[in-house]
C-alpha cells in the first residue's frame, strides 16, 4: 500500500491520464487523521487506498497492564465522540464476566445517558456531514443542540467529551438534582430543532442531488463487509443490538428501528435522523420509569473476573462496539480486543467510492461516520 507513487512531477502530469491525489492526513474533511490515496481519472475515482494508524496509542496493549477498574477511562478515548457508549461496553463486559448484579436505577440511568450520547454523536455526524457537502449553517445549529447534551454531561460526570461515565458495578454517583428536568427540557425542545434541519436539508434539491444514489451498498454486501449500526440499517437490514441482545434497560423500552431501502447516502442520512427521534423516545420512557434505589453494586476490593474469555457488544452510535476480554484470573486482563465499528465500516469505503467523483468521496466518508480515535486505537 505504501508503495503508491505520490511524487508526480508536472511533466508526467500532462502525459499520464491518471493522477494520484494524497488526501490527508491533514485534510479538512477526512474526519481526523485518515489518509486516503486516490487514483483519479480527471475527477473520477478509479482506485483508492486508506492509510490508517496516525492516531495509534496502543490502547489494547495498555489495557493488559492496568487493573480492570483503571481501564475504563482509556475506553473513553476510543470513539471520543461517543465516550459514554464506549465506557459502557467495558464496564458491562467486566460486570457480566463477574456475574455482578447492577441495580436497576443504574441500568436506567445508563440507558438515558447512552441515548443522549447517541444523539450527541449523531448531531456531530450531521454537522460534519452537512459541512462536507457544503451546508455550513447546519454545523452550527447541530452543535448548538449538542451543547445542551454536553452541559448535562458536564454536570453529571464533570467532563464534556471524555466523561469516564461509569464504574464497574454501577455509576460513580447518582444523577444530580436537576438531572430529570434538564433532560426533559432538552427532549421537549429537540424535535422542533430536528425539524429545522429537515427543512434545510431533506427536500433541498442540492442535498438530494448530492446524496441520492451516492455510495450505494446492497444488504448482502453490507453484511459481507460486516457493516453495523446506521450504515447497515440504511441498506435495509433490521439488526440492532439493543433489540437483538438487549443490555442495560433496553429490554423495557419500546422503540422502532428505522430502515433504509436503497443503501445510499440519503437513506443513511434519514436513518440517523430517525434514530435521533427514537433515542428521544427511549429517553422519555426511561425518565418515566426511572426507579429509585442505589446506583452501585457491592464490589470486591479487587476486581478479578474468573479465568475465561467473554465477548460483549452494545449498539454504539456508529455501530456494534464490542469488547473481547480474556482473563487469567489476576487483577489485570490477559488480552483485550475491541471491535471498533468505525474501522469495519471504513472497509466499505473503496467499494462505495469507485466510479464516483472526488466530491462524493468526501460525502461518503461523512456518511460512514468514522472516528479515527477508534480506528487507530
Amino acid at each position: 500500500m505504501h508503495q503508491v507513487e505520490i511524487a508526480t512531477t508536472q511533466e508526467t502530469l500532462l502525459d499520464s491520464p491518471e493522477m494520484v491525489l494524497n488526501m490527508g492526513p491533514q485534510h479538512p474533511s477526512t474526519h481526523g487523521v485518515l489518509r486516503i490515496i486516490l487514483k483519479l481519472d480527471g475527477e473520477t475515482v478509479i482506485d483508492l487506498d486508506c492509510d490508517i494508524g496516525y492516531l495509534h496509542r496502543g490502547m489494547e496493549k495498555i489495557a493488559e497492564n492496568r487493573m480492570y477498574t483503571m481501564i475504563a477511562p482509556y475506553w473513553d478515548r476510543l470513539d471520543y465522540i461517543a465516550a459514554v457508549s464506549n465506557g459502557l461496553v467495558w464496564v458491562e463486559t467486566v460486570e457480566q464476566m463477574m456475574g455482578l448484579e447492577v441495580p436497576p436505577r443504574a441500568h436506567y440511568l445508563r440507558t438515558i445517558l447512552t441515548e443522549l450520547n447517541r444523539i450527541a454523536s449523531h448531531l456531530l455526524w450531521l454537522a460534519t456531514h452537512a459541512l462536507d457537502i457544503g451546508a455550513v449553517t447546519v454545523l452550527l445549529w447541530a452543535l448548538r443542540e449538542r451543547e445542551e447534551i454536553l452541559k448535562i454531561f458536564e454536570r453529571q460526570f464533570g467532563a464534556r467529551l471524555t466523561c469516564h461515565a461509569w464504574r464497574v458495578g454501577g455509576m460513580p454517583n447518582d444523577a444530580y438534582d436537576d438531572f430529570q428536568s434538564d433532560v426533559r427540557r432538552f427532549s421537549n425542545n429537540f424535535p422542533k430543532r430536528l425539524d429545522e434541519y429537515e427543512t434545510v436539508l431533506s427536500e433541498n434539491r442540492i442535498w438530494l442531488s448530492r446524496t441520492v444514489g451516492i455510495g450505494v451498498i446492497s444488504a448482502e454486501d453490507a453484511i459481507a463487509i460486516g457493516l453495523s449500526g446506521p450504515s447497515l440499517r440504511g441498506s435495509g437490514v433490521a439488526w440492532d443490538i439493543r433489540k437483538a441482545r438487549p443490555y442495560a434497560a433496553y429490554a423495557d423500552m419500546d422503540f422502532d428501528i428505522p430502515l433504509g431501502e436503497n443503501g445510499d447516502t440519503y437513506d443513511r442520512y434519514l436513518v440517523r435522523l430517525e434514530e435521533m427521534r427514537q433515542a428521544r423516545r427511549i429517553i422519555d420512557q426511561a425518565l418515566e420509569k426511572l426507579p429509585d434505589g442505589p446506583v452501585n453494586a457491592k464490589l470486591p476490593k479487587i476486581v478479578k473476573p474468573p479465568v475465561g474469555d467473554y465477548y460483549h457488544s452494545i449498539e454504539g452510535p456508529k455501530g456494534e462496539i464490542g469488547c473481547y476480554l480474556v482473563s487469567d484470573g489476576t487483577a489485570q486482563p490477559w488480552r483485550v480486543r475491541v471491535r471498533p465499528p468505525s474501522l469495519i465500516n471504513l472497509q466499505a469505503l473503496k467499494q462505495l467510492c469507485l466510479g464516483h467523483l472526488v466530491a462524493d468521496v468526501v460525502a461518503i466518508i461523512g456518511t460512514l461516520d468514522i472516528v479515527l480515535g477508534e480506528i487507530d486505537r
Partner: protein
Amino acid sequence: MLLFAPIDFIDQLLLKAGLDPQTINYVIWPFLQIGLLVTVVALWVAYATYLERKISAFMQARLGPMRVGPWGLLQPIADGIKLLTKEDFIPDKADRWIFFFAPYIAVAAAFIVFSVIPFGPDWAVITDINIGVLFVLAVSSVGVLALILAGWSSNSKYSLLGALRSSAQMVSYEVGMGLSLIGALMFARTLSLSGIVTAQGSDSIWFVLYQPVGFLIFLVSGIAENNRAPFDLPEAESELVAGFHTEYSGFRWSLFFMAEYAAMVIVSALAVTLYLGGWYFPLVYRLTEARGYHNLYVIVSLLVFITKLLIVLYLYFWLRWTLPRFRYDQLMDIGWKWLIPSALINIALSGLAIFLLQALDGWRGFKLIDSLSGGLNLTASGKALMILFGVLGLFITGMLLARINWRSRDFNLKSQRRSIRTVNLPQGQPAVPASAKG
C-alpha cells in the same frame, strides 16, 4: 452646496497652477477618482467580509466578531494588518514568477471593471464608454486567467484541480451570463451602462419587470461566475482544501480574496444596473434635480444605488450560508442544460415580444410605443403588455426547459425523495438477522 465647494476649489487651484483645463479634466481628475475608488473599494471589501461574518453569525445563532472594537467593527482592519505582515511564502517547487504575478492579475481585472460602473449620475461615473457591458464581460473574464495561473504555478494537485474546475466553470457560465444580458439590451438599445440606466429612468421602469427570466439567469450565472456558494467548487474547502489558492498565504492570498469580493460587488452592480434601474428611483429626480439641487441628486442616487447593491449582496450571503454545494458535473449540467437553453429561449421570446409590440403599435388606434430615442419608451398600456409578456416568458421558458430536461436524473428530485420505514422488532431477535429487504 457647501459639501462640494472643495471640488470647485481644487479646479481653481489647478488652473492657477498653470495646467490647462484639458489636462485637468482628462488626466488629473480621473487619477483622483481612481485613487478614491481604489481606496473605497479596498475598504469596502474589508467591510464586506465583516458584513458577511455578521450576517452568517445572525443566521447561525451566534454573534460573529465582537472583540476588536465596538461590535467587532475593527476586525477587518486587524485582519488586514495580520495578512499584510505575514511572511510572503512561496513554495519551493512553485513556478515563482507566475505564482508571484497571478494575484495581481486577479485583483487588477476586478478593479478595472469598477471604472465603468455607473454608481450615480454625473460625477459618480468615472468613465462612460459606449461598450460598457462588453467591457465588463471582457475584463472580468481575464480574472479566470489568474485562477488558472495560480492553480498551475502552485505545483499542488489540489490547486490544479481547483484551477481546472474554475476554468471550466467560468467559461461555461460566461456564455449563459452574456446571453442573458441580450434581452435587457434589446430594451435599452445601448451597451453603455449609464445609457442603460437612463433608458430605465426615462421609461420609468425597471427591466426586471420586462425580463424576469433574464434576471434570474443573470443572478445564477453571476453567482457561479464569482465562484460563490453553492457554486464555490474551485475553492471547495471540504474537497480541495482551498482550491486554486491552497498554497497562497498572507498578502497574496488577501489579493485573491479582495478580487473575489470585488467581483461579487461587480456582478451585483451589473444586476442592479441592468435589471433594477441602477441609481434610478421614482421621485428622486423630481424632488432634487428638478428643483435645482444637483449635487443632492447625485448623492441620493448614489445612496439608492448602494442600497440596491447591498440587497443583491445580501442575497449572495444568504445563499452561501443556506445551501449545500453542487458537485462538479451537476454544475456543468446546470450551466449547459438549464441556463444556456433558457437564455436562448429568453432571447427569442424577448425579440418576439418587441416585434409584436411594434406590430401592434398603431393597430386600431392603440398607442404602445412612446418614442425610440433613449431606449424603448413605452406608454402605460405598452408597459402592461410587456410585463405580461415577461410573466408569460417565465412559464414558457419553464415549460420548454422541462421538455428539454425531463429525462435527466436531476429533473424531479423531490419525487425521488423517499421516506424510510421503521420496524418494531420483538426483543431478543436471533443473532443472525433476517434480511428485511422487500
